[in-house]
């Protein structure tokens, strides 16, 4: 029995977190959030994603990728969530996954090496309407879950109060048929769940650190039992969400019998954990937590957006009921 990350997988995650801590910290994230006219994809970070293999993670070696799997991808997603990092990493990885799983040899040869290197930006869209696509305005290739490959579409920006992303409605462009990639929605849900888990853990860690130091009534506020118990429950919930995201990645990757259930469990648990943890982050920082200057809102807003992506918690629970209770 080995239900854990290997040393290599842990090191991969540590490398992403280390890079963000040193080279793209919350001040840099804030720069992107406040630069509302920008494309939301800072060049330094994108370059690093290409050079350090974050984008190449699931691309096969024959197409100049690392040939790793969804477990490693969720390690990266978790680290990017913890750093509330902006940029089209997830869309690019998912577009590559769709092409790897369902593309023609020519489509693979055209796109996979470029997506793996960061020479092209990818996006995965959930429907034919191509509405509110993540980084749609700068995407070189958009793949839809129903099996189309779109290039050269034009984008109209869609506002979102989560400033760590840019969204666009897309129209036009050239459409190529692509087989519908199996489990591509599951893969998307797993990577979003992992991002949410990263957000949730980081929000809790920062809140604990603050409440150990912040003094009111002559004592650290973290010594009050009502705060302790809430944070202890959050720690349990987040730990469970971490297990669930890890297992779902594995289950989808190996095509486990319970993969559908695992994905629904992971997404529902991670979404709830992140919304609760970032809400607590605001509450347990007191008034400062509600200010623009404080970082709590970066985590909270990203959690709110992603909790609704690729099925919100209620939708996934309806799926869980279907799988375990029948109709």
């Amino acid at each position: 029995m080995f239900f854990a990350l290997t040393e290599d997988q842990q090191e991969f995650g540590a490398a992403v977190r280390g890079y963000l801590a040193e080279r793209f910290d919350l001040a840099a994230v804030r720069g992107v959030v406040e630069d509302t006219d920008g494309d939301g994809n800072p060049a330094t970070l994108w370059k690093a994603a290409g050079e350090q293999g974050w984008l190449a993670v699931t691309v096969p070696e024959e197409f100049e990728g690392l040939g790793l799997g969804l477990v490693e991808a969720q390690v990266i997603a978790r680290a990017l969530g913890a750093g509330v990092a902006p940029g089209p990493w997830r869309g690019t990885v998912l577009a590559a996954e769709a092409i790897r799983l369902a593309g023609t040899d020519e489509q693979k040869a055209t796109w996979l090496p470029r997506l793996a290197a960061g020479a092209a930006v990818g996006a995965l869209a959930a429907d034919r309407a191509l509405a509110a696509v993540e980084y749609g305005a700068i995407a070189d290739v958009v793949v839809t879950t129903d099996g189309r490959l779109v290039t050269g579409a034009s984008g109209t920006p869609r506002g979102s109060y989560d400033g760590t992303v840019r969204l666009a409605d897309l129209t036009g462009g050239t459409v190529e048929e692509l087989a519908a990639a199996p489990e591509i929605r599951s893969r998307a849900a797993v990577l979003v769940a992992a991002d949410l888990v990263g957000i949730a853990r980081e929000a809790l860690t920062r809140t604990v650190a603050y409440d150990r130091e912040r003094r009111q009534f002559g004592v650290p506020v973290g010594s009050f039992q009502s705060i302790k118990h809430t944070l202890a429950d959050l720690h349990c919930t987040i730990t469970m969400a971490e297990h669930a995201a890890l297992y779902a990645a594995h289950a989808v990757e190996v095509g486990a019998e319970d993969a559908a259930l695992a994905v629904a469990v992971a997404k529902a648990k991670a979404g709830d954990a992140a919304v609760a943890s970032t809400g607590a982050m605001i509450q347990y920082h007191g008034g400062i937590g509600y200010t623009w200057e404080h970082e709590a809102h970066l985590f909270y807003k990203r959690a709110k957006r992603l909790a609704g992506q690729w099925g919100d918690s209620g939708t996934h629970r309806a799926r869980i009921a279907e799988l375990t209770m029948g109709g």
Partner: protein
Amino acid sequence: MDLSYTAAEEEFRAELRAWLGANVPDEWRRPGFWASLPEDESFRLRRDWERRKAEAGFAGIQWPVEYGGRGGTPGMKAIYDEEMVLADAPRTVNPLGLTFLAPTVMAIGTDAQKKEIIGPMLRNEVIWCQGFSEPGAGSDLAALACRGVRDGDDFVVNGQKVWTTNAVHGDKIFTMVRTDPGSERHRGISMLLIDMHQPGVDARPLKQMSGASEFGEVFFTDARVPATEVLGDIDDGWRTAMLLLSFERGASGISQYTEFRRQYDAIVGLARTLGRHTDPVLRDRLARVLTDLECLRLHSMHVLTQVEQGRDLGFEASMTKLIWSETFQDLWEVYDDLLGEAATLDQVSTESGGVDLRPLHAQSLWSRSVTIWGGSSQVQRNVTAERVLGLPR
């Protein structure tokens, strides 16, 4: 990631499954069977059955062969627990001994203690009770008042313990006793191994809100115990107790998942029988519980992995206790709510006849106890906040 067991472990599973298949009578699998028996008879049946199981080699799975165990792996122990649930095998009559005392003895007991305690426990020759809680010392264990005074080679013990599982069936009790007369709080306590078959020990059943009497009270009036019958050092019992409590469940969580998942499926079946299974609110609540049950399964795989890697789980045991007990209680709350106005009735009528709810009610009522015993949820949250998250005391 490797979620499989080894070939040797799977071989063990097949062997155990075959034995259980041949040795668990069909009648025992009937819902409500155990509840229909008088308590003494149920205990005697289970005690004998478990002894036969031990003689067949299916006991002390992880304990060394030289002390009467099977010398198996943590994976085999997880398999053992799971197969016991799948076979509807009766619950052990020696839970405190097997779960808590045995691993503590293996960790810090003398060689003589390992020989004297483990084997007889596995064969149910000695039923062990745990003497921790007192009327004035529940969650605050360090407030205990039970005292032992040195008299020659013995301690003479006076005081009272309560919430003692199997009190009236117990042969010996591992007991937290204040042996240093001037001591306070965590200091000056010893864990004494007291023979319950003596005039100075009086064990009485305690009737619970469910009507059953799993627990009891134990009164010590000049009870005697040799000073050598101590686990760990004299006056250092707090350290022994903390080690002992750290064995909370550990790698047996997989069987808990199996057990709770069966209960979930039974509740879903009842919802269907009652025509409530399409209610969207109920479905959402059941799906929440199922989500937490699945997480419990993954957590037990995590715990087993850590154990196999030789890592110390430390205070993570508090989280394990907290999540299984709270999830179990959540599950049975959904059951209560699904019944609506039939929530407390012994029977509910359906188109296909009456359903006897009493075995299910017994579980539902029991679920109120699990968040209290073995360290209440509130204590576990304190431990998690202070010892894991590092929040100030």
